[in-house]
């Protein structure tokens, strides 16, 4: 083994294909995006250098404010629903006394394997203001809270985020369940012998030991929320107007609808930076808790 690890040329030789592929599909596009963000470019013509002009325009673009707000709401809904509820379900399914655990685990994961388009169409029908399941149910129960779920400029983003949260909750659940199962049972037994109730033992023992899992779950939930796109495109096409825009939707609009690729690249660069900052902050927060 030592002899093998000492052969740096061999390591380099075997790593080179992966490095090249990574360069072509990740590094090169990212560099291109950063490079093009400093230009006025329609995707076909010769680009003209614009310095920081695209970024200056972006920071005064009202769509950025809308997109950031929507990204924040989306991320919050994902965190609360996917991680919050995912944790509870993971703890329940990890309990050997719960009957039907296998069935529950499968049921929670089923939406993940469905097509996003199918799920969106399903929820479009559920959200229909006249004949949709939710409004009909509220009507039947005599609750006067019927809403225009997908046509309201303020509520529709929450309704759409919920669809994403519902569909991919099973994925977060699988990660959290694996995290719970990786904790040795002796810890829980020791806590129980010390007089802890089951839920208190989870609070004091299980959850703190799942820090690394949570770090990953929070990262994918928050960055996924900030960069959400597909559900908005399918369910409301970003509307009414631009009320459901996120930063990825901005990229789509400026690149493919307005042929303003330079500006779209600037939006993409800011999106990447915000996602990186979110990732760093999440890591710092979890690392600080560890220090305490």
């Amino acid at each position: 083994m030592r002899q093998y690890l000492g052969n740096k040329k061999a390591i380099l030789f075997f790593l080179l294909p992966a490095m090249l592929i990574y360069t072509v599909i990740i590094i090169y596009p990212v560099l291109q995006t950063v490079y093009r963000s400093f230009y006025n470019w329609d995707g076909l013509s010769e680009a003209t250098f614009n310095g920081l002009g695209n970024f200056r325009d972006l920071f005064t673009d009202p769509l950025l404010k809308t997109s950031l707000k929507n990204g924040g709401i989306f991320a919050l809904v994902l965190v609360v629903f996917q991680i919050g509820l995912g944790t509870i379900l993971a703890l329940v399914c990890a309990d050997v006394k719960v009957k039907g655990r296998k069935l529950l685990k499968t049921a929670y994961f089923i939406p993940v394997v469905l097509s996003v388009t199918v799920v969106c169409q399903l929820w479009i029908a559920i959200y229909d203001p006249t004949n949709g399941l939710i409004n009909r149910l509220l009507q039947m129960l005599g609750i006067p809270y019927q809403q225009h779920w997908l046509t309201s400029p303020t509520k529709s983003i929450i309704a759409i985020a919920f669809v994403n949260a519902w569909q991919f909750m099973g994925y977060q659940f699988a990660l959290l369940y694996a995290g719970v199962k990786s904790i040795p049972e002796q810890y829980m037994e020791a806590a129980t012998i010390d007089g802890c109730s089951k839920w208190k033992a989870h609070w004091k023992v299980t959850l703190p030991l799942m820090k690394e899992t949570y770090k990953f779950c929070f990262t994918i939930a928050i960055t996924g929320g900030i960069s959400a796109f597909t559900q908005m495109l399918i369910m409301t096409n970003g509307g009414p107007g631009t009320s459901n825009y996120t930063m990825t939707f901005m990229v789509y609009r400026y690149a493919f609808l307005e042929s303003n690729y330079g500006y779209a690249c600037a939006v993409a660069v800011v999106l990447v930076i915000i996602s990186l900052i979110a990732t760093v902050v999440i890591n710092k927060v979890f690392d600080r808790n560890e220090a305490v």
Partner: protein
Amino acid sequence: MKSTWNKTWAGVLALTLVASLTACGGGSSSNKPTNTGTSGGSEAGANEKVKLKVYAQHFDDDTAKPFDYAVEELKKEMPNVEIELDPAVQDGFQKLKTYAATGNLPDIYYTDWNTLQTFSKSQNVQVLDDYDTTKEYKANLNPGVESRMVAPDGHVYAFPDTGVEFELLYYNKKIFQEAGISVPIKTIDELAEAAQKLKAKGYVPLSIFAKEKWITTAFYNAFLTREDGIGTGVFEKGDPKETPQSAVTAAEQVKKLQQAGLLDVNATNTNYDQASSMFYTGKSAMLINGQWEIYSAQEKMGDNVDFMYWPAKDEQTYENMKFQMNGSGGPQGYAVSSKSKNIDVAVKVAAFIAKKSAEYKFTVLGNPIVAPKIDKPVTATDIPAMMKRLTTDVLPNAKGYAVAVSKLSISTAIDDNTQNLLVDGFSVDDFVKNMNRALSK
């Protein structure tokens, strides 16, 4: 050893970055063809076999049959030309743009003004101004459709087959009778009143597939063209920095109608299938769509459907403006790639296909909305009554058409904000504020 190792890695990384940045530096600055004039590329001899790739709409009977007819006719007229069809996809011309970006444009392609603008700047489209074929085609256009061929910048980039299409207000005669609404509805107030009567009877007054933003612009443009004949063209005429008064008035009218309950509560989340289904199944009393809907409407509803002219603020304006068509004819049609090896032949073939497609639509389908004049008789026997009405009542009296918006940032702002007008909580002031922002850019 460690130092050598680090240097090797640093070298590899540096090379990778240099390679990436070098690739970044490359681009479309090179390879600038001349895309004007009357010849280009290496031309084939008169009888030499020429193969041309054509990117054309060919996804249903309406698009495939006229094209196939044109190709059959071409075989008789130019037997040395072989057409290879590349069926267009309905993707906002993204596939075509990808072809252009990768240098693979077909010899002839069907596209719209938005794409032509980009292709003109990037020299991917042949400017057709000086070709004899162009002069002949232009001289043979139907009245009022010049804007389909001559771009706002004064150049010709494509040969149009269709004329200027426009949006109509279709209505269900029986439902109108049942609700006691007399036609034509001439004013906005009458339309609002009709909406309330229809709602009281349990109908959705007007179904609109407002999930697609172009139809919300068309709906808004219908009222704007009553105020100013050029419609949304007012947003570019004279390069205004603020929303023109006519556009504000039209926004107020749309808002008034929305508040009167003219539209379904789910309008901005309704697609074409849902909206048309509501109309055809008698759940809604009116439908807005282009004149191309006539065939489906007549087929599904028979004599129970007709269209009316768009109402205006008062009867006098209605009478003055009812023949101002709610449709803007931006340039579109068959364009020729400036990279084609057989440009001269391609120009002739593009014009021929455009003309013959129009001929099929006019003679076989009885559709009068075609760009070139057709000197052949109509052979269709089952022309819908509404289409006949277009031919006899509307087109001969058409006073003019709206003007297409060229600037993409303004047209997308119009799309966004006209859709917004259809929902509660978005005011006319919001509309004006957003449009002013777009105009001041």
